[in-house]
């Protein structure tokens, strides 16, 4: 996909054009290679089926083993309309099948997406099995049970002068190729749209995708419905292709074959399922026909598949891409761990954006609220019998830079988690800009303008720096859920500016296209802050932004944080007291889950209780 995007910069429709050329050329070339037209047609149907599945699995990271349910649903609806109901229009029947499959997919998604990971995989399998049994028995009156629905007609095109009949073999091919082409064009638009970016974010790090303000569940459901629509349409085409709608469409084997073909071809590529299907079906023909292997062809394919999963993780397309990168010598330039350019070089630009960034986007609702930006009262968090926080009262004024210190285990991170609504408090209330946010989700709170950077980096690791920032900025500019599936992100007003500003602000402007996995630690730390910044918060929480940095990196980051704080309210937790005292005008000290004392840095330094809290800890450690 990164390859696709790289090409896009030169010519926006290159992939589409190449696909069209290949599809047009295929019937002129493939017969000479000994391909049976029927095999080619089946590859196209599997390929189309797989496009939707790849959006679900390859892009969004949701591995479903139950796509057969939707494939069968779309197929049988279309086939029923065309055979038993006497519906005359083939294409319209296919579209109706697709819509029904999408609607069913929505309902299935509601159940299956209640859980993630292996639960999701198991639930989709179970649901698909139910569909299989329902087709065979309760609905057999409509579906023909084990006999399926024979007599599905093929489409024809009335050109006025003459009527083109797409019957079988190469005569049907143009119709299927056209459907595939439309499918791939739509899918390319979707994966390049803002929604596509969010899909990838969910695949890489669903927790952070939610924390920067995206409605993860909504987007997952969207991916599921998209996959269902593709499955439904492909199911209809299967009936057309075979002139018969087979009940086997509903089997677990169908789902399994789809998964395997996608993995063989390469997930997250859109074309992977087509390549996988080609390998699968040609190999099947070859093993059964030429080698006379009979039934054991499937064992060979199974072994090939296991080997591919073991050694060629990204499938054939991924393998070819790696090979190309290797040949091009791109691997020879792994990102050197750069030393940090002085932040001072960016301060000129920050002044330019100071007028811009805070004015951005969406936090106007309560912008005129005059009281404290954050007020927490009686905040407690108990884990079983253990109190991580107890009765915390905490007020932060707009424009403040507040520091929080405290010995290990003082409950600092738990307090942050409660303030950003990652964990619900056991008791107490949190009021942000005059609005009670207790019990809201982390996504809603981020949308209101309160977010944090994490103590342990939570980045989108396989994406580039720019893509990371884009994901956060999209949540700020588009809200938590919007289905602008066909939109080009560059048409979103303010997106480009916001990304550039954030990159400049965190001093990563010259490394936008480097994947996160190749960044140096200090750079990752700054990107972590950048992700929080890109959602243009009015209150920014930073959980140990200086942790693990060298003294020099610390000095630079302190400068960076100071420049950021000019425009917004910030609360910083850190163990580096010198740095914190330098930045913050007011400090809250936590000890054993409670607020021990609050005051200016000088007051805190002089406070006997604070010394006792820290030294007491040390004394105990020595005693132990």
């Amino acid at each position, binding site marked *: 996909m990164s390859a696709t995007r790289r090409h896009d910069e030169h010519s926006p429709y290159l992939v589409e054009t190449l696909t069209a050329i290949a599809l047009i050329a295929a019937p002129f070339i493939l017969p000479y290679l000994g391909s049976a037209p029927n095999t080619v047609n089946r590859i196209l149907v599997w390929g189309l089926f797989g496009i939707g599945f790849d959006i679900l*699995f390859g892009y969004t*990271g949701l*591995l479903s*083993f139950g796509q057969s349910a939707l494939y069968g649903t779309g197929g049988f609806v279309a086939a029923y309309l065309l055979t038993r109901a006497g519906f005359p229009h083939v294409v319209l029947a296919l579209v109706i099948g697709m819509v029904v499959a999408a609607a069913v997919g929505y309902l299935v998604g509601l*159940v299956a997406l*209640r*859980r*993630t*990971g*292996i*639960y999701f*995989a*198991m*639930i989709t*399998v*179970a*649901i698909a*099995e*139910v569909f299989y*049994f*329902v087709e*065979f*028995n*309760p609905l057999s009156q409509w579906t023909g049970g084990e006999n399926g629905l024979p007599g599905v007609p093929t489409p024809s095109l009335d050109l006025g002068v003459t009527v083109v009949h797409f019957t079988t073999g190469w005569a049907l091919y143009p119709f299927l190729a056209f459907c595939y082409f439309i499918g791939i064009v739509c899918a390319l638009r979707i994966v390049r749209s803002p929604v596509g970016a969010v899909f990838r974010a969910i695949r890489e790090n669903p927790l952070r995708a939610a924390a920067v303000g995206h409605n993860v569940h909504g987007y997952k459901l969207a991916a599921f419905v998209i996959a269902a629509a593709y499955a439904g349409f492909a199911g209809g085409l299967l009936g057309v292709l075979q002139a018969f709608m087979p009940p086997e469409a509903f089997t*677990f084997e169908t789902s*399994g074959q789809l*998964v*395997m073909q996608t*993995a063989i071809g390469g997930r997250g590529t859109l074309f992977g399922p087509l390549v996988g299907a080609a390998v699968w079906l040609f190999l099947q023909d070859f093993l059964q026909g030429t080698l006379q292997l009979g*039934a*054991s062809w*499937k*064992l060979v*394919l*199974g*072994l090939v*598949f*296991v080997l591919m*999963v*073991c050694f060629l*993780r990204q499938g054939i397309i991924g393998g070819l891409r790696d090979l190309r990168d290797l040949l091009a010598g791109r691997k020879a330039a792994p990102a050197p761990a750069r030393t940090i350019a002085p932040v001072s070089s960016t301060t000129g630009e920050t002044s330019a954006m100071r007028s811009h960034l805070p004015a951005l986007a969406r936090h106007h609702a309560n912008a005129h609220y005059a009281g404290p930006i954050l007020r927490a009262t009686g905040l407690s968090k108990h884990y079983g019998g253990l109190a991580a926080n107890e009765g915390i009262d905490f007020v932060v004024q707009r424009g403040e830079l507040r520091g929080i210190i405290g010995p290990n285990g003082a409950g600092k991170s738990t307090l942050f988690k409660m303030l950003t609504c990652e964990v619900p408090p056991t008791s107490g209330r949190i009021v942000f800009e005059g609005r009670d946010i207790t019990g809201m989700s982390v996504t809603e709170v981020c949308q209101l303008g309160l977010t944090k950077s994490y103590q342990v980096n939570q980045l989108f690791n396989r994406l580039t720096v720019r893509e990371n920032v884009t994901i956060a900025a999209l949540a700020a500019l588009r809200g938590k859920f919007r289905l602008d599936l066909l939109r080009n992100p560059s048409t979103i007003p303010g997106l480009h500016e916001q990304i550039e500003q954030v990159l400049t602000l965190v001093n990563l402007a010259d490394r936008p296209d480097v994947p996160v996995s190749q960044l140096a630690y200090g750079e990752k730390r700054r990107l972590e802050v950048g992700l929080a910044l890109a959602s243009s918060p009015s209150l920014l929480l930073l959980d140990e932004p200086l942790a693990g940095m060298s003294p020099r990196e610390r000095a630079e980051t302190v400068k960076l944080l100071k420049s950021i704080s000019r425009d917004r309210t910030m609360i910083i937790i850190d163990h580096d007291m010198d740095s914190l005292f330098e930045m913050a005008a007011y400090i809250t000290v936590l000890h054993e889950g409670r607020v021990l004392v609050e005051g200016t840095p000088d007051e805190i330094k002089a406070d006997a209780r604070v010394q006792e809290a820290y030294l007491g800890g040390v004394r105990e450690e020595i005693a132990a």
Partner: protein
Amino acid sequence: MITWPNFVSQLFNGLALGALLALISSGLTIIYGTLGVLNLAHGAMFMLGGYAGYAAYQATGSYLVAVLAGTLFMLVVGVVMERVIIRHFYARPLEDQLLVTFGLAICIVEVVRLAFSSQSMSVPPPSLLTGITSLGFMLYPTYRLAVVGIVAVALLALFLVLYRTRLGMIVRAGIEDSVMVDSLGINVDRVFMTVFGIGAMAAGFAGIVNAPIVSLTPEVGEAILVQAFVVIVIGGVGSFPGAVVGGLIAGEIISLTSMVNPAYAYVMLFAAMTLVLMLRPRGLLGTRGRE
């Protein structure tokens, strides 16, 4: 026609099926809880166990030998599978683990098909347990009755291993907090291997015990795997008691629904699963451990 004896006998059928499901699912759930790998080849192992028992029975004519040999064989298969392939996937993403075990399942099924053909096979129950037992108010096939007892003993053995041995302690701790166990300096490598072997053994054992009830085909594992998934979702991932309770619930649902209309067995099973997901997403006895 639903009659009282019919109902009770279906209740017993449900118990037998439920006990088998409990045994299979507990293997699956312990493997997942400890290793973090959902073994999609678990159904195939159930099937392979049945065939191993069948082969041993063909060679010796003894049910007891069939059970012992088949179970041991599955232990070896499990350990080899873990050493050769599965262990390389612990650090890889969840999807890769699903893909590779799914591929292995296909390989196992196809190997069996090659060796034994697709035709259904059957192992007769041991002579001691053939025939029909009178329970006073009804007659019931002796072997099915015995299966409940046999599986109950196996579950008890599993329980003792899990709750009364050092290995079991590590396994349960790993299910609660995998990171912690990793950092305790326990030789997880060997624990993982043993757990996978035990899980495979449990599945294989269930496969052999089940062979005299339902005839063997290479596809028999697929349906059982789906049912085991439902059991785990209902009972809660990683929970041994959850697998037992979920297994019994699923067994009874399938059996009792089949009495009315077999076609709706899966629909009811699915309805129960959905209900649990809505009311208690972690499963009846699920822990927070691995999600």
